[in-house]
């Protein structure tokens, strides 16, 4: 067989990488390429990531997201690159990846590189190759843009640690929310080992930050922290189990982000997994719950309370509204008096709107007209608030409340359109 061209290899290895949801390029330190040693340095990061394009799946394209190779000695059923899958295989050298990254970056197509790999020869060998690509970019091209390296939990701990010296972000995928799911669907992976590698990384990140505090010239270590990804819908885990796992990951390993990836049909899928349309709405609800826990002060118990007895979040309404409908006695909330924490629990009020209310009510008492200017939709908010000229019917009395505040079916369909 002839060697595939760069174009063919890119097609294969980008296609193989698209099931990783993360494409973030934010949250790292500010850097730029002015005054680099040779004057040839390229690249900058300014805190906020940039999405340079969007694919028709609505996902941001911020980084060149590829695998070094899609050959793999593992046989994880959900993965397109598993050993028993009959897909075309290809392999980049670290130099080719670095050159491709520079070619794209100079034309302003991307913010940087997100490099992952199937496992070849051994986990440590694969990890060395990943690190080498990043090293070429940083040291030989003086590349100052963003690098995200996927870390292989089975690799030598010293290599896992080294990855953070070149990368802005490192990630290890937890893959499935339960150990049973992992054993069944990713038989070559081990849950304790994944947790061990995350712990190692968390320790190295804290150490790196500490060293920077004491020595100004200490090298930066993975300044954008670590993240992970869970596949949703490939095993039987409920939303409650997923959120429990996720909250544990944020707590134990200081994760910057946990990504939820709806299991999506893949070519030449394993027969163990029934293929169906990816549960996109479920994925969306999980992200919303994640947000509630990180930015709206909800506890894990609150999110559990929003779920049904089987631990599943409702699909037709968002988890915040589900929570409010369940605990109607906590509403209405007076927008002119209530503390910030309670305002954040009102369905339809986002962080921006709450900030606006808290700031504006210092000037005068707010009425509905003010709220109309501060919020997206007054109809959604009105049943849950008290304003200067407004007091709703007691919520517990209204049997039809859900029908009033729940979005119409057509609005929901939009997400699938």
């Amino acid at each position, binding site marked *: 067989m002839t060697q595939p061209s760069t174009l063919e290899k890119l097609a294969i290895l980008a296609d193989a990488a698209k099931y990783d949801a993360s494409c973030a390029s934010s949250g790292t330190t500010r850097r730029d390429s002015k005054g680099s040693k040779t004057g040839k340095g390229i*690249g900058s990061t300014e805190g906020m990531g940039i999405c340079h394009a969007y*694919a028709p*799946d609505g996902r941001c394209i911020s980084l060149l997201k590829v695998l070094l190779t899609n050959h793999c000695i593992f046989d994880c059923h959900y993965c397109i690159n598993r050993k028993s899958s009959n897909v075309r295989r290809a392999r980049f050298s670290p130099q080719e990846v670095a050159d491709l990254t520079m070619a794209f970056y100079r034309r302003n197509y991307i913010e940087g590189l997100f490099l992952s790999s199937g496992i070849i020869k051994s986990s440590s060998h694969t990890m060395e190759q990943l690190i080498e690509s990043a090293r070429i970019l940083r040291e030989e091209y003086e590349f100052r843009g963003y690098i995200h390296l996927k870390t292989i939990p089975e690799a030598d701990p010293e290599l896992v640690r080294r990855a953070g010296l070149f990368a802005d972000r490192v990630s290890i995928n937890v893959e499935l929310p339960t150990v049973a799911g992992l054993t069944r669907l990713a*038989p070559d992976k081990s849950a304790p080992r994944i947790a061990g590698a995350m712990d190692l990384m968390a320790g190295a990140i804290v150490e790196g930050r500490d060293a920077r505090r004491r020595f100004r010239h200490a090298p930066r270590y993975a300044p954008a922290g670590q993240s992970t990804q869970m596949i949703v819908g490939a095993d039987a885990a409920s939303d409650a189990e997923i959120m429990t796992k996720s909250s544990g990951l944020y707590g134990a390993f200081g994760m910057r982000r946990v990504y939820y990836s709806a299991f999506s049909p893949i070519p030449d899928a394993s*027969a163990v997994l029934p293929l169906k349309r990816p549960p996109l709405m479920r994925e969306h609800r999980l992200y919303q719950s994640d947000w509630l826990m990180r930015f709206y002060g909800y506890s894990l118990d609150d999110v559990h309370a929003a779920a049904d007895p089987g631990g599943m979040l409702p699909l037709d309404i968002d988890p915040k509204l589900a929570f409010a409908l369940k605990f109607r006695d906590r509403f209405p909330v007076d927008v002119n008096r209530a503390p910030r924490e309670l305002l954040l629990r009102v369905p339809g009020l986002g962080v921006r709107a709450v900030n606006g209310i808290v700031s504006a009510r210092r000037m005068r008492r707010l009425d509905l007209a003010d709220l109309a200017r501060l919020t997206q939709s007054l109809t959604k908010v009105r049943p849950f608030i008290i304003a200067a000229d407004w007091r709703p019917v007691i919520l517990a009395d209204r049997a039809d409340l859900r029908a009033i505040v729940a979005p119409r079916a057509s609005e929901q369909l939009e*997400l699938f359109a």
Partner: protein
Amino acid sequence: MTALAPRVCVPVAAHDDFDGWRDSARRLIQAGIAPDRVIWSLPGAVAGDLFAGDPPPDLAGDAPPAAAPPVLASRDYLELAGRAALHADPARFDLLYRLLWRLQTAPRLMDDRADRDVRAIDALARTVRRDIHKMRAFVRFRVVEDAHGETYVAWFEPGHHILRANGGFFVRRFAGMRWSILTPQGALHWDGETLREGPPADRGDAPAGDPAEALWRTYYASIFNPARLKIGAMVKEMPRRYWKNLPEADLIPELIASAQAREAAMIALGGEQAGRPPETLAALDAAVAACRRCAIGCNGTRAVPGHGPVDARLMVVGEQPGDHEELAGRPFVGPAGQVLRDHARTAGLDLDAARLTNAVRHFKHVPQGKQRLHQTPTAREIDTCRWWLDAERHLVRPRVVLALGASAARALLGRTISLQQERGRFVPLDDGAQLLITSHPAYLLRLGEAARVAEAARFAADLALVAGA
């Protein structure tokens, strides 16, 4: 009604000249000129406006009147105004001046986010901020070679007056490159050391293509997942007005059009798996007989169901039925079955009390003359058939499972094992049963004499372990 006070017409030097505007505004406030008397005249506006008024009284003067009070502007205001000033809305400076005027008597006005003017300036500033961000995202450079080496040139059409405001970003990012950004409002040129401004340009001034674009378009098409089509989300963040200058955008219609067919094809390939497992062994056997989920199921042979008590404590899993088994419709009745029975008897293992079954339920073979030669099933075929084995295990619930050979082990563990490394010890299965893996008795039949004796001893030892469990 009182008579109208005379209006003043104040020029703004350039569309994005916020500093110049701020100087003028300060003098106007000090001169006490109310917002409804000021007309801001932007470059390119038609002279002799219907409402055009007198030149402003004191604007050309060098210093404001000594007695004039200081003009107040909060930090919030300056930050928002600096951005809002770059908006294409011709009335933006009226809004900025009106707010500045009101700030003189209500210094905390900017905190009132529900105020109409505050909302309006906030909306303008956010639009500009987004436009600045989108320019950073959607500028696409193309390389030109000239006497100085490589220069990267881009053609871009901003929605607002943001070109100059964005210069710093591109300098910080591409300091080590020579580049030019051409727009209908003007141009920026960086030579590695200084940033120069140029006159408005045309699309034709920029190069028409770049060799890397084929790679980029391939990447764009490959990273798209057809099973997750969300066109609305894409258009919201990448509005159509930018598409004409994006080399990847003309792929979008075809990607969308083919997405549903690609997704349906993937689902159809694996889709037969859906459905509930049978609830009795009889139903299971009937369903297996009709199974056509893989090529073996379609080869015209008869399915061979499992055999033995429903409440068996031990389940023995082989690879697949052979020639004899297919004819008899029962597992383990051929030569390999005989080897298994002989060893089981020696080990004290009662196979009549055990459930005997196979990883794959149809006979995979190639005809050769009058014979049908056994062929090993592929990993995918085993995985497909695993659904039946799982259903059978669920109904029988054996406490101990004996897997004969690597195919059986794959059907139980879901991975390809190394037989020599994993044989001969118990491992727990997900339902709590104990699994022991050993070689397949047919393997003994294929070995030479010396090797057979050694292997038979190991086989016997493994069976003895199961008998003792």
